[in-house]
């Protein structure tokens, strides 16, 4: 028998990046005895290497805890820790759909920031009960009272009962748990109705195969049950049911209102679509639940194996990763210079970096990443042999014959930026440089909220990094897409040693082409090691060179001393060099290191 509905609480922890969600989750787990002191580590739910290294959450995680409240009853808490970075907003939205409430964590020193707002508005849309938590009150710069007022003024929710915590030093944790029990409503659900469970998340586990996180709305799931995925149309036999506490724990069943995982011998990655509704084979529910809004990737780039022989391995690895992360897309691509690979779509540049890093790390692949691009819509005029048509351009390499182009449109976004006013000047300049159009500027206390319309292709590469660096980390940023607009866009080629390098070509606005070209050439000059000959690097639009740099020839590279007949050291060096050579791609006889392809695009100080 599963837990009585009145004793269940399902909630997400949401916040702006770094405000302490994962650390708060640690404390909640500890107080509820989910892990012993010895098993505990910092941000224990951030279990991917890459999350631990970067200190950020990428993937939402769900934990079931038992908490005995002051009223003497023991509650089942299903806690979902979510990421704060804008690129992973999709993870947040899925978690929210599986809960009845949210803990809104706000840093007592930083106050309300862009993702605080973006996430809280999503939560409100789900009719959630929101419990404000003001965290990091241990910091000398903490101003909990001001932050309380900010929450009320900017977000417009009552913060008079906001819980004050220091997740780091364990202050206020019981208060958070009591507030969860008292304020967040228990789930509704009917045990006897036909099964309706939402497929919240799915991932590939090397031991269990495909694991599926579900939120049961009505009915129940047990081992041995035959289930149907209503959207996917496939049927499966459930062979394991359980939850994470946060250790994996098998359960007899998952009942209404509960969150847990199942495995069902699912082989095909595509079968476990996030947002699908799971019901029973026999006497299933007639209508599915409302699914998730499909996410649209906004940044595209090509991923190619350094070693062409790794293509199959790359295909398999991308398939597995995709199961872990429904928000990126991929399709096969071939390039003259790079051979077989994939064109992949991502939610943002950090997302791209993370996927690339996970592929190389978890699947041991050496990859070449081509310049990221957004999706352009191009209207082509007719020719003698072809009709007029409209195409979508994902890859600068496919840029059509310019004489056929009648119009190019590019995606625009509305960006909302929050910043302490002292950085406003620099931020306005940044937006202006990126072809932004200011639509609103509001002051709230010592802060400014500025709204800009910006072309997405000016934002995808390094806008976020630049924003952070010019505001010393204080400005925050959120955006939404607002459709396509016509632009005077051209394709810029980069020529290395007089040969165009496909993977470096990009689409730019004519007004900034020369400046971008110059920047690219300058950066490539530093990124490509000196060779035995001098290397011209040029940026060109059509046949016209718009920028040029030269990498001087190498002048010294030698082991001066070869001592006492010790040949082995020199031989090791030669072996290392040969290996390094095998890992670089040659263009026009020039070896370009992999990291250069993305690094060349970072615009840096301007």
């Amino acid at each position, binding site marked *: 028998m599963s837990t009585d509905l009145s004793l269940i609480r399902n909630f997400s922890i949401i916040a702006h990046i770094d405000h302490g969600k994962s650390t708060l989750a640690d404390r909640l787990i500890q107080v509820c005895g989910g892990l012993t002191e010895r098993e505990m580590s910092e941000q224990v739910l951030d279990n991917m290497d890459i999350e631990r290294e970067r200190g950020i959450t990428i993937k939402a995680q769900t934990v079931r805890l038992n908490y005995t409240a002051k009223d003497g009853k023991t509650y089942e808490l299903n806690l979902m820790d979510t990421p704060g970075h804008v690129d992973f907003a999709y993870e947040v939205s899925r978690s929210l759909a599986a809960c009845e409430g949210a803990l809104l964590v706000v840093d007592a020193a930083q106050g309300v920031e862009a993702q605080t707002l973006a996430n809280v508005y999503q939560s409100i849309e789900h009719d959630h009960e929101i419990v404000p938590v003001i965290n990091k009150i241990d910091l000398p710069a903490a101003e909990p009272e001001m932050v309380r007022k900010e929450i009320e003024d900017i977000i417009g929710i009552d913060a008079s009962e906001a819980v004050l915590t220091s997740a780091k030093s364990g202050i206020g944790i019981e208060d958070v748990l009591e507030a969860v029990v008292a304020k967040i409503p228990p789930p509704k659900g009917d045990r006897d109705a036909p099964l309706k469970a939402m497929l919240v998340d799915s991932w590939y586990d090397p031991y269990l195969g495909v694991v599926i996180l579900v939120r049961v709305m009505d009915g129940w799931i047990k081992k041995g049950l035959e289930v149907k995925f209503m959207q996917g149309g496939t049927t499966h036999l459930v062979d394991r049911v359980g939850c994470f506490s946060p250790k994996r724990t098998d359960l007899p069943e998952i009942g209404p209102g509960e969150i847990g995982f199942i495995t069902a011998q699912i082989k095909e990655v595509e079968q476990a679509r996030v947002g699908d509704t799971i019901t029973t084979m026999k006497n299933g529910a007639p209508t599915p639940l409302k699914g998730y809004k499909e996410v649209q990737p906004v940044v595209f780039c090509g991923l190619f194996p350094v070693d062409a022989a790794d293509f199959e391995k790359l295909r398999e690895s991308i398939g597995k990763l995709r199961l872990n992360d429904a928000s990126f897309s991929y399709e096969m691509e071939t390039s003259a210079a790079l051979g077989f690979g994939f064109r992949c779509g991502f939610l943002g540049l950090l997302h791209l970096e993370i996927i690339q890093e996970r592929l190389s790390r978890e699947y041991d692949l050496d990859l070449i990443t081509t310049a990221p691009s957004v999706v352009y819509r191009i209207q082509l005029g007719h020719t003698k042999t072809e009709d007029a048509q409209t195409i979508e351009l994902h890859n600068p390499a496919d840029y059509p014959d310019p004489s056929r182009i009648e119009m190019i449109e590019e995606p625009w976004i509305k960006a909302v930026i929050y910043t302490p006013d002292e950085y406003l000047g620099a931020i306005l300049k940044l937006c202006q440089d990126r072809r932004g159009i200011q639509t609103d500027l509001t002051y709230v206390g010592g802060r400014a909220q500025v709204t800009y319309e910006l072309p997405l292709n000016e934002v995808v590469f390094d806008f976020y990094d630049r924003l952070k660096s010019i505001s010393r980390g204080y400005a925050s940023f959120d955006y939404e897409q607002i459709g396509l607009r016509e632009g005077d866009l051209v394709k810029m080629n980069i020529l290395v040693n007089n040969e165009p390098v496909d993977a470096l070509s990009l689409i730019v606005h004519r007004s900034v082409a020369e400046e971008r070209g110059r920047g690219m050439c300058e950066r490539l000059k530093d990124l490509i090691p000196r*060779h*035995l000959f001098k290397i011209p690097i040029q940026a060109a639009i059509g046949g016209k060179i718009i920028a040029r740099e030269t990498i001087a020839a190498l002048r010294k*590279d030698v*082991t001066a001393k070869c001592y006492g007949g010790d*040949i082995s050291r020199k031989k090791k060096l030669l072996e290392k060099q040969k290996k390094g050579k095998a890992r670089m791609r040659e263009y026009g006889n020039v070896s370009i290191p992999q990291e250069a392809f993305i690094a060349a695009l970072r615009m840096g100080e301007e």
Partner: protein
Amino acid sequence: MMARALYIHWPFCLKKCPYCDFNSHVRDGVDVARWQAALVADMRAEAALASGEKLSSIFFGGGTPSLMPPALVEALLREAEALWGFAEGIEITLEGNPSSVEARNYADLASAGVNRASLGLQALDDAKLRFLGRLHSAEEGLRALETAQNVFERVSFDLIYALPGHTPEEWRAELSRALGLGTSHLSLYQLTIEPGTKFATMVRQGDFAPLDDDAAADLYSLTQELTSAAGLPAYEISNHARHGEESRHNLTYWRYQDYVGIGPGAHGRRSGMATQRHRKPENWLSAVEERGSGCQHELAIPVPEQASEALLMGLRLAEGLDIAALARRFALPEEQLVDFAELEQLASYGLVTREASHITVTPAGMPLLDAILPRVVADGLVAA
């Protein structure tokens, strides 16, 4: 092919120099009798495996072999002669430091049989010597050189250049002075910061920055210009000699002929085998005393790898090497030894020349040898 060259390593120094990554150690006292017995035993162990041809060169390297008691040197030479025999005109070199203490030994070392000295002068002014952590002064070094030139038949010395901030003017003056000291052989090494040395730590901590490669390249060409004009052109990347005065012993390495190496950390090549002695003096000593040999590794080198070694050593020499001869020696086709397409390209940059089957790295190519080798040496020869 049988060994005609013998290397003997003496691992002790009075002080460790901050740039040095050789197998050198500072010890309070050395039990000379024990070391003599052990070096003799190590020599016998190798002679048992590789003898038959007379030695044409012996090299005492270190460490600081000029600290060896002359009687020990003499005993080792006598043993070597008994084991292999000496070829007519054998070259017997001993490395030394030019302090006044050691200079007192030179005459006795010469009587013991040493006929060539290689002195670690390293610099001709006190500020540079101090930076390099050397124990001798400039004055002392010059006097030691004079003593050596009086007692040994041939004397070479080393200088280190391309120090931090080293200007072409300074180096021109110093090298010109050195060339005026009546030597017929010079080793001129650019300072390199080797991992694990004190200098490596200092560079990491920002105490000084090494000279940048372009400036070092300028000093390298200046060096070629001055030494050639003085009649001591480079015959190897860092070694210069009047014609006929090259170090025969070192040519053995570079021409990839066999050599016996004994003493701590010594390397040897014995018909396709690489031999390496225990590096740490104490470990080597106990190995010899227990098993009669200080050898730690003895490894068969696959033929293609031998060919790669021959290439990477041979191309250091101004004389270059003959691919056809190499192909015969290792019974491999020429195109499996070198990448001819790369060679052609490198030739077009003026970095190598090729005449029939003979290839030579040009003076312009020499300072780039490490970048040239991975292109020239055929892929199949290198384990990658």
